[in-house]
């Protein structure tokens, strides 16, 4: 039997990941020299990976 995660926890996690992703993608767009489609795709991918790592790191130091 699989344990169901509470919808509230899922919402909170999604919100946190989205906030990290937005902040990191914005940082990417600020730091690059020229903005084009390839840079946007690479930046969005890197920000997604970074958002997951940032959430893992944040949970590791707060250990709720």
């Amino acid at each position, binding site marked *: 039997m699989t344990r169901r995660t509470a919808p509230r926890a899922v919402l909170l996690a999604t919100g946190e990941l989205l906030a990290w992703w937005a902040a990191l993608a914005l*940082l990417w*767009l*600020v*730091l690059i*020299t020229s*903005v084009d489609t390839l840079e946007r795709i690479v930046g969005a991918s890197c920000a997604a990976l970074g958002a997951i790592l940032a959430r893992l790191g944040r949970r590791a130091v707060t250990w709720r």
Partner: protein
Amino acid sequence: MNGWILAATVALGGGGAAALWGVTTGPPARRVIAQNLTTSAFCPALLLLAQGYGRPAYVDLALLLALLGPVGTLVFARLLSDDLSAQDASAWGLTWTAAVLGAAAVVALCVAVGPGRAMVKLLVIGVLLIGGNVIASRALAGGFRGVRGG
């Protein structure tokens, strides 16, 4: 030679010489403070050089230095914590002087490049430089000794 390169030369020469003197003489606390302040001298100099030569890509060097310099100092603060707790390793006058000089360089460069993404990048570097330096100075002065795992 223009004003930017002249200012960078003064920062590199003056700051570099002072830092070299501090790093090579005196007790460990003084040396590690001087090592920490090299970032504050070299990072604005790199920003000024990028503007002086008209090569915005060189700004990335300053960004890396502003990011990695304080991290390196935190490693020293951890490794030398026994030596540093025995001596007074606080240098707030120098820290804030370096912070004001860095802020002045960043503001001057922001005025020169005008509003846009380049200006935001400069401001990010300035915040990293000053914030990182203040945190590293506080770590050297023993400000985080009570922190868990610190």
